[in-house]
């Protein structure tokens, strides 16, 4: 379409500080209430110590996150860069169709809509942001977190690699924190796992760069099934 030209925002912010703020696991959109199926793994005893926590993190990042939220964030950043609102709208529909487990789908839009509300006061004069916000408010789009993340980082003048690096790190950091609380593992073990994962972070950056919409939503039966089982867990600390 190309009719909505995104313009850099005229606000007195620094891209790096914006990036640190919005990718902080404590950014108040409710990320800390979600385990994305990890809670099932812990209750079933599949993730039960530092070693299985490491394996969970690695498999989740390389087989699931890469083809889902990371790829969606990359595409949203690129579509915003090209001012392709129609592509953003299609991406939003596609994410609703590929996020099969109900709790993952709801988590994605719940976080997305809170994200939207927080950055709205800063970005309300940007036409591209407003157009997407309007689609979400009218119900035409669901407002997924990954889409808003890609869109907002681009509008904050944050480079694509930096934006993706930060979301990879904050996703991994949240998983390690959840493992520390749920499994539990020691904080030291958690940080060792995170240091060790740096090589995977780099792989994700390289891999996502060459992926397109065709790979979006590749599902892993185990992750899908455990996220579904979470809907009926007897005791739950997390929403997903």
């Amino acid at each position, binding site marked *: 379409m190309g009719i909505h030209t995104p313009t850099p925002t005229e606000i007195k912010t620094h891209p790096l500080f914006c990036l640190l703020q919005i990718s902080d696991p404590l950014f108040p959109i409710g990320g800390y209430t979600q385990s994305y199926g990890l809670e099932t793994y812990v209750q079933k005893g599949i993730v039960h110590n530092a070693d299985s926590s490491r*394996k969970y993190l690695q498999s989740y990042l390389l087989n699931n996150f890469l083809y889902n939220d990371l790829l969606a964030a990359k595409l949203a950043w690129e579509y915003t860069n090209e001012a392709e609102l129609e592509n953003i709208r299609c991406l939003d529909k596609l994410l609703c169709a590929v996020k099969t487990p109900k709790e993952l789908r709801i988590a994605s839009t719940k976080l997305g809509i809170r994200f939207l509300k927080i950055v709205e006061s800063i970005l309300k004069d940007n036409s591209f942001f407003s157009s997407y916000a309007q689609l979400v408010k009218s119900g035409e789009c669901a407002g997924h977190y990954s889409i808003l993340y890609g869109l907002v980082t681009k509008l904050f003048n944050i480079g694509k690699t930096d934006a993706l690096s930060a979301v990879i790190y904050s996703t991994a950091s949240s998983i390690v924190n959840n493992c520390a609380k749920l499994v539990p593992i020691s904080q030291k073990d958690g940080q060792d796992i995170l240091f060790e994962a740096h090589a995977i972070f780099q792989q994700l950056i390289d891999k996502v760069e060459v992926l397109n919409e065709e790979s979006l*939503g590749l599902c*892993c039966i185990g992750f899908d099934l455990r996220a579904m089982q979470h809907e009926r867990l007897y005791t739950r600390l997390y929403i997903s």
Partner: protein
Amino acid sequence: MINKFGKDSKLYIKAKVTNGVTMLEDSFFTAPYKIAKPFFDDTKGIMNIMVMAASAGIMEGDCYRINIELGDSSRVALHGQSYNKIHRMKEGYASQFNKFLLGKGAFFDYVQKPTIPFARSRFYSTSECHLKRSSAFLYSEVFACGREKRGERFEFKEYKSCNKVYYNGELIFLDNQLLLPDCQRLEGIGFFEGYTHQATLAFFCDNFNYRLLDRFYELLKNIHGIDYGLTTIKRFGTIIRMLGNSSDFLERILINLRDEIYNVITG
């Protein structure tokens, strides 16, 4: 990519309702596909069609195309006759493309026999189903790690499947799976998690009866030796995923789950 070995194998079925009964309006097939004379389930008003393949299985270079068109209110179940054995391949692959068009109020049940990918096989499958108001689509599939009884576990090269479901032109469900045993730890966390078989049942219908979910849970909770999860998609439908260690066992569970759905739509 050009298919340099085989040729396309086609199956086309068109059904309509005449005097309240589903009839075969048109059909067409090329080798190795064959269809037997349809048999009717009068109590459920469903026309059952058995698809036979005069072949030892899926070979390198094969390309299968199934096209189904169901007129308004027609009810058809398409059954496979034998396991989908995907044979060893050299450097090529085999593929399948399915397209199902359902008229208003039509019901289509796509019952596939379990898929067994042999060592060094490559298979790509794409299906799309288009629904209209009050039409319903049910599909079920079982996927094995290989010829497990001879110790063949995840020795195939590649298996890719993509199932899309549209409702009045809008994509409502996309199931995208890519299995690459050479670069994924398929026995580990996130994939088969120690099991050798997976199964999926999906049912889409715009007047979906959510009480069905409780029936499914009742049925599944007493079954041992499998892990299962079920969920509802954003618009109209449910997905059940299972991990287990036997094709026959998972198939029997799928039959029981399908019976619950049949009871609701024909009851």
